[in-house]
């Protein structure tokens, strides 16, 4: 019983942290993008305003049970990844469920939500949603390859599939894995572009073509939960990268610094580029990123 | 002693003679008499077979002239087995064709006489112990076969019969040459005597005689490339006669050839020769069968292929190989007869006998189609039906002799076989029926005959022990050449004083 309360408490605190940081990052993203494109852009806290507005909407419509449950599915992925990914080194934050699942479990729980939400999007009957979903799934089949290659490279190099163990190794040796496994880091970093779906990989939402794709037909409380889940998930993913490759973090400030600098990469990668077509995006991930992944595995096997 | 082997020749010949005479008295007797004769002979051969397996070969001397001077009949487990098989097939074919040419009495008389002659000739080939006598029986068989091929008196059947006749006369010529060669060298025509004295022959004459035998008998045994006559003859002869060809006549031909090769001469390389020629026959025939458009022709090629397989099995030469060969012969006789009998109902009214005319016929002829399907499945060797056991014994025999390549070849050819049989089956069952095709319902007796064959397939399939004992005895008897010579010649010794 004590354990359950402990975990619930930890979950709530982690959630609030991730929510705050995630929403802030998204706001900053909008601001920075605007500045690069020579616009003034919204203030950095604009996303807070958006979320609060959505959350306080009175009416909402849905097209069926699956759509109704969609945001709950995506929330499961966000919160579960947050619970499994250690937030700070050596459990200086809440231990949550860090020891209960390994990387493979994490990989799979990370697709649970998107697929659940895809079902909800499918039920709306809006063709844009379905098109967005097919694009998203195709892109996922693309970026998962270098991403898994990077993870496998880490696993075989250090003979563990546990995130906590990988963090401890970095703490003990004092060497970040991004330097001891450079190819794995490169592959993972490029895979991250697909995960965050910013330009030129924003084929799923694709504002001009698909009118935000799977998200269309969602409003009010549904969009509220989705946006919150999205920002929490973004923070969780960034933390995972920091944990795996950048030596983790000893306190929250370092964590924020590291995650934000990492976040700049997908944000700035193609900010002025036009959007890829779906097959181009898929092929992109099977090109150089997968080659780096392969190198990472070879590196791990022979060195 | 219930009866003597000589009855196998005498009774049907007598009956064949009596049929037209009795026909004047009572028309139905023309149809009944052959059946009675065959039934009695079946009983006789079964009892003799039982006796022979336990007490040893019966040698019957005709007219008191002891071997090696006179003509003798040898009822050994091997010849007994084949005799029984042939008479059984003859009997079933009789049941099937009981109502054949129901209206045309004269035609029926001819048909039954010729059928009886065909069976008698084939049984004679198997039973006789004298090589010239065998030649005579081959001629009897062939002439009845020519006549039966041309039975329908159409253009095509006449042509087929003529081809058969032409090739058949070549066969007779070579056989006579071979026999003459032997007689000039050894001065004897008795098989056992020839076998005992074969070493006295000059090797070049021996081989020459062997080659003439192979060519002459190979035509009867349908080995490639001597089998050009066969597809036409099978396709043009009446349905039951196709069954008789594949179930009776060919078996006699193969027997004669094997007897010459295994018993008469002891020449190195015969086994390898049999294997090679058998494989070639098998492959060419099965490959030709795939693209046939006529049902009976397809069955004919399949029949040739199966005989190739039998010859390969004989070529293995071990007891297991011979066992497998005899088993294959037995199953082939039963299954291919069933296919011919049921197949001829499937294309009964069609002039071209095209395979495409069987489309969807299962709805009209459920039982016949089912039996045809049973036969097809059995002949490609699917367990638990009869064909499986013979194929299996063939494979183990080959494996024992380390002839792995043969296993591979035989099985690949089986795949081809499978394709063309299943294509026909699919047509029978699943294609839409063509409107213009007229269906002929099988008569009761035809159904009975086919049902009997189907039952035999099931019995052998589920309980192969019912026949394996006889097959073992027969294969031992073929391979034990010394015993054959002794059995035959010692009869003479006993009689002489």
């Amino acid at each position: 019983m004590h354990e359950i309360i402990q975990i619930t408490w930890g979950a709530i605190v982690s959630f609030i942290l991730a929510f705050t940081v995630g929403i802030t990052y998204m706001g900053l993203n909008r601001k920075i993008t605007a500045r690069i494109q020579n616009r003034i852009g919204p203030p950095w806290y604009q996303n807070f305003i958006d979320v609060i507005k959505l959350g306080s909407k009175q009416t909402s419509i849905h097209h069926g049970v699956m759509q109704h449950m969609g945001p709950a599915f995506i929330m499961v992925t966000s919160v579960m990844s947050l619970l499994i990914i250690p937030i700070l080194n050596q459990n200086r934050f809440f231990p949550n469920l860090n020891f209960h699942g390994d990387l493979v479990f994490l990989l799979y729980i990370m697709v649970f939500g998107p697929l659940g939400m895809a079902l909800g999007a499918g039920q709306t009957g809006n063709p844009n949603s379905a098109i967005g979903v097919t694009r998203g799934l195709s892109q996922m089949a693309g970026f998962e390859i270098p991403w898994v290659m990077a993870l496998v490279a880490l696993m075989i190099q250090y003979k563990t599939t546990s995130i906590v163990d990988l963090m401890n190794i970095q703490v003990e040796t004092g060497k970040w894995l991004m330097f001891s496994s450079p190819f794995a880091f490169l592959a993972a970093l490029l895979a991250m572009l697909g995960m965050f779906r910013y330009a030129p990989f924003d084929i799923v939402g694709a504002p001009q073509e698909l009118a935000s794709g799977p998200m269309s037909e969602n409003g009010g409380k549904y969009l509220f939960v989705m946006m919150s889940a999205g920002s929490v998930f973004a923070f969780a993913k960034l933390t995972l990268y920091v944990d795996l490759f950048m030596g983790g973090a000893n306190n929250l400030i370092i964590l924020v610094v590291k995650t934000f600098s990492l976040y700049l990469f997908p944000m700035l990668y193609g900010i002025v580029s036009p959007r890829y077509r779906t097959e181009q995006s898929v092929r992109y991930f099977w090109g150089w990123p997968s080659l780096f992944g392969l190198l990472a595995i070879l590196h791990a096997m022979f060195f | 002693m219930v009866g003597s082997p000589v009855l196998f020749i005498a009774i049907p010949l007598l009956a064949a003679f009596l049929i037209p005479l009795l026909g004047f008295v009572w028309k139905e007797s023309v149809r009944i008499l052959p059946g009675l004769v065959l039934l009695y002979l079946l009983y006789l051969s079964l009892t003799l077979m039982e006796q022979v397996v336990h007490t040893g070969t019966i040698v019957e001397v005709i007219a008191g002239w002891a071997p090696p001077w006179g003509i003798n009949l040898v009822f050994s487990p091997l010849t007994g087995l084949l005799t029984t098989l042939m008479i059984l097939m003859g009997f079933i074919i009789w049941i099937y064709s009981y109502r054949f040419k129901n209206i045309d009495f004269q035609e029926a008389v001819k048909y039954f006489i010729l059928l009886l002659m065909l069976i008698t000739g084939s049984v004679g080939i198997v039973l006789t112990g004298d090589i010239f006598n065998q030649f005579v029986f081959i001629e009897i068989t062939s002439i009845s076969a020519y006549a039966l091929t041309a039975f329908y008196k159409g253009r095509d059947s006449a042509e087929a019969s003529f081809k058969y006749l032409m090739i058949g006369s070549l066969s007779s010529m070579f056989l006579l040459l071979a026999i003459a060669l032997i007689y000039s060298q050894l001065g004897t025509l008795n098989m056992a005597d020839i076998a005992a004295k074969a070493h006295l022959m000059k090797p070049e004459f021996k081989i020459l005689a062997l080659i003439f035998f192979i060519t002459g008998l190979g035509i009867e045994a349908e080995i490639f490339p001597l089998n050009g006559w066969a597809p036409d003859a099978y396709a043009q002869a009446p349905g039951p006669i196709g069954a008789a060809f594949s179930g009776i006549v060919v078996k006699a031909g193969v027997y004669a050839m094997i007897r010459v090769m295994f018993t008469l001469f002891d020449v190195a390389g015969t086994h390898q020769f049999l294997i090679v020629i058998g494989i070639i026959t098998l492959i060419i025939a099965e490959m030709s069968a795939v693209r046939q458009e006529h049902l009976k022709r397809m069955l004919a090629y399949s029949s040739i292929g199966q005989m190739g397989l039998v010859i390969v099995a004989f070529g293995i030469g071990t007891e297991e190989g011979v066992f497998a060969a005899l088993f294959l012969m037995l199953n082939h006789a039963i299954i291919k007869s069933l296919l011919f009998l049921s197949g001829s109902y499937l294309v009964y009214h069609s002039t071209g006998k095209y395979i495409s005319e069987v489309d969807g016929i299962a709805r009209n002829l459920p039982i016949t189609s089912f039996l045809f399907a049973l036969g097809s499945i059995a002949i490609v060797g699917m367990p638990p039906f009869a064909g499986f056991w013979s194929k299996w014994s063939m494979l183990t025999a080959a494996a024992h002799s380390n002839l792995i390549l043969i296993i591979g070849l035989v099985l690949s050819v089986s795949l081809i076989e499978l394709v063309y049989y299943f294509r026909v089956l699919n047509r029978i069952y699943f294609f839409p029926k063509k409107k213009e095709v007229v269906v002929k319902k099988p008569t009761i007796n035809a159904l009975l005959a086919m049902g009997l064959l189907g039952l035999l397939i099931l019995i052998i399939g589920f309980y192969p022990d019912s026949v394996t004992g006889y097959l073992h005895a027969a294969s031992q008897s073929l391979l034990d050449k010394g015993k054959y010579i002794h059995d035959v010649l010692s009869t003479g010794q006993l009689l002489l004083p």
Partner: protein
Amino acid sequence: MIYILFSILLGGAILTFLANKISGLLRDTFFLLTMLGATLIFYTQLHIGGLVNFSIGSFNLEWGVNSFSWYFSLIVLGLGTLAAFYALSYMKGKENLGFFYFSFLISILSMLGIVMSHDLISFFIFWEMMTWSSYFMVIYSGKNVQKNGINYILFSAFGAYAMLTAIALVYANIHSLSIVEMISNYGQFSPALQTWIPILFLMAFSVKAAMMPLHVWAPGAYSDSPMAYTSVFSGALSKMGIYGMILIFVTMISHLPDDTWFREVFAWLGAITAIMGTLWAIAQDDARKLLAYSSVAQLGYIITGVAIGTDLAMLSALFLAALHALFKGTLFMAVGAVERQTGTVKFSEVTGLIRKMPWTFIASLLAIIALAGIPPLGGFVGKWMLYESLINSNHYILVIAIFFASTSAFLYCYKFLFGFFLGQEEKEWAHVKEAPALMVVPMLLMAGFLVILGTFPGILLKPADTAMQTLGFAPTEGHLWSMSVLFNAWGDQVLLRPLVYAIAGIFLFFLIILTVKGWKNTRYVTTKDISSSGEVPLEHENLTFSVNFYQPFLRAVGPVMKHRMITWYREFGAGMETIFDFTRRIYTGNGQTYAIYVMVFLVIILLLQNTIFG
């Protein structure tokens, strides 16, 4: 007891067939009683280790049950019984039902026979019985018999003949047909035989397990059989191939000095099968074809697991084998339900069934989640063990290949659910009702079992572990798995229970929030009430996206899919037919030619007489 089991099935099959002529009710009763009777006897009367023998055709036949065969019998009878109930309703009103039920029971009988055979000859006989009884099912509908039917029978026969060759070789060498003796004498065979016997056996088994490159029969055969049988066909019958493969790998390949080669080749063939099966499944518009290709892919994973052969890999293969029976059984049944209720199985034709067939949807959803391997359902357990075993046994590239296949599998998983159940609800399908309870309940039962297995995989891992011990593996309980914990060889673990509870908790928490918040102001609108490019579609306009669903993805993988195994086979077949046509012309029909042949034959032999009879 085995006698009784087999005679019940055989007698029941014949009785059912005969009863068909009398009355439909009698036939259905016989059919169900036979199935239930067999299952009942199997679970209550049959004890592991029992052996019966008798002889036929001078062969000694031996039948018996061990834990390994028990595990596979479990799959066969479990799925078989549920499919039998389903079939009663699904097949209602179709033609030739006696024939269908007869073949159904015979194929169940032959599968049980296969796993219970302790000698090669009865193994082979049952194997062939399985082939022709399932062939009857493939051709049952009468569609494409000349193509798919012949394909199926041809490939099966190819495999069977390979096996027959192996059996003949074994028999020629040890003069015994007992499987136990074959295994114990395997070490004394010559090196050539030691390689060839397992290869020949594996050829036979990989045909049934639909492994590349012998899989081409599968999509056609699976999609042409009636769905009530396809669930058994893909779920249980293909597992006979896996059963044989496991046997061969454990008892023979592992004794070879260069077994790594074998293992690598087969593991890769399995992985390639998985990838290609997945890609082709993505491209299908016909739900039956999609599931058929997906079956091929799923069997690929299992083959990889078997080939790797470490205890974790074998455990995952066994687990996945049972799981595949569960979820693919459910999915084929769901397709059957949709087919029966709507008359079509094309994604591009039927949409928006979720509100009409909710139970079918739920069952399909759960099965799809399990198929995709997503926690918290059973599929994840199998996938996890497979990945970890591959990583632990240093198959790094292989694990990427498998991972690629299972990530791409999400695409067709989504297509399946979206195509039938989601999208716009059309008037055309307004009349559609949920399938009868007899069809829905078996699906829901299997789906429910999948849910339980997600948290407590130990239920199934326990018998799998016992089965592996029969094969000579060390017990794995406690260090590779316990009731709801999974371990890999490095000691990393997944504690399923807290994870599943957490998932359920979070999901329910947010679901309640979503539901309660603004309960009164939340309203349901139809799928026609959407905004599309600023317009609201009219009632008759169907905007569901279902044609060229994954076109961009297929374009991306286009180069791989350009080459199809089946075209090669087709070309080979066409070439062979040309050759056959040529040989046919050897027989010209001209008597003179034939006479010349005779003379040529004579001359050749005369010339070569010294070579031939030297």
